[in-house]
């Protein structure tokens, strides 16, 4: 009887240890794509954006569990990012909770920023920086800044894909206006100002901008988050 109990306790302890080991390894995998938690003023993004003046900068705003956004990331990777290691191209991806009721109650997204790692794995490029904005305030900030409207109705900024030229500087509280903003939003369907996302056209515009830059004019100056 005592031996059986000892065996059961040993098995239980081994199982618990194995569980802990598995948890540790999955946490390591998740942290292999680090991200910065973005405050409501987007100050970390603004600093990195301005540090890379002189390079072409891309800004993607997505929900990391939105299939359409993930397809957009996959398309961007296929048509643009996986085929270049050009340090004159910097990409910022802001992840924010939107789907379901997360936009009105972001605290309901219990997985938090854990979904960022899965989405981030779709982009194979060293010059990509990921941000997680748990409050979703960045979507409102960007929407106001770029005038994301359908007629007079303000449209929350997510699933939007922006290109900034080398001269763009983020001064003040609001992000600057981009050279191009594409989207996959039903609320902006038919908008002449904001075309629907076509990753091939987007990539072509980026390549055109890069071709106008002197070679090696900037180097990657991204501030990597602390591990």
């Amino acid at each position: 009887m005592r031996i059986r109990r000892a065996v059961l306790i040993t098995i239980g302890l081994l199982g618990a240890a194995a569980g802990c080991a598995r948890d540790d390894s999955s946490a390591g995998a998740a942290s292999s794509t680090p991200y910065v938690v973005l405050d409501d003023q987007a100050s970390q993004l603004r600093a990195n954006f301005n540090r890379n003046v002189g390079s072409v900068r891309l800004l993607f705003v997505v929900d990391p569990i939105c299939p359409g956004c993930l397809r957009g990331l996959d398309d961007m990777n296929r048509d643009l990012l996986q085929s270049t290691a050009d340090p004159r191209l910097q990409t910022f991806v802001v992840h924010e909770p939107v789907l379901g009721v997360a936009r009105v109650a972001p605290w309901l997204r219990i997985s938090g920023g854990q979904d960022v790692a899965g989405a981030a794995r779709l982009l194979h490029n060293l010059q990509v920086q990921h941000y997680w904005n748990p409050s979703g305030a960045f979507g409102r900030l960007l929407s106001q800044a770029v005038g994301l409207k359908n007629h007079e109705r303000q449209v929350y900024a997510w699933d939007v894909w922006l290109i900034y030229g080398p001269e763009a500087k983020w001064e003040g509280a609001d992000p600057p206006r981009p050279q191009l903003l594409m989207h996959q939003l039903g609320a902006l369907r038919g908008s002449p100002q904001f075309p629907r996302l076509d990753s091939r056209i987007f990539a072509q515009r980026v390549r055109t901008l890069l071709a106008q830059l002197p070679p090696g004019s900037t180097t990657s100056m991204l501030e990597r988050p602390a591990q």
Partner: protein
Amino acid sequence: MSEKTRVIGTAGGALGLGAFAAAVGACCGLPWAVPLLGVGGAVLLARLSFLLPYALLGAGGLLAVAFWWVYRPPVVCADGTCLESDRRPLRWIVWVAALLVAALATVGLAPGSA
């Protein structure tokens, strides 16, 4: 193949297509795809979303065939002895399938945010 098998198969096919349409239609407005299918599955689902209208058309076509089978005029034999089976249970099945497909189509076509 018996009439019952044909009707149930056709109505089931319509239901399957309706469920597919609901899945691809609701994929981008509800937060279920990544937890259930993973990132790769969610991307695939989003890539298949263009099939939504075809799936709905297919479901409608299958339902039309099923309705035709259960409401078609009875076969008249030369000697007048052919026994027509009772089609009422099959009609119920087709009507229930049609209502379910309509509900699934509503889910699939509900305006999503993206």
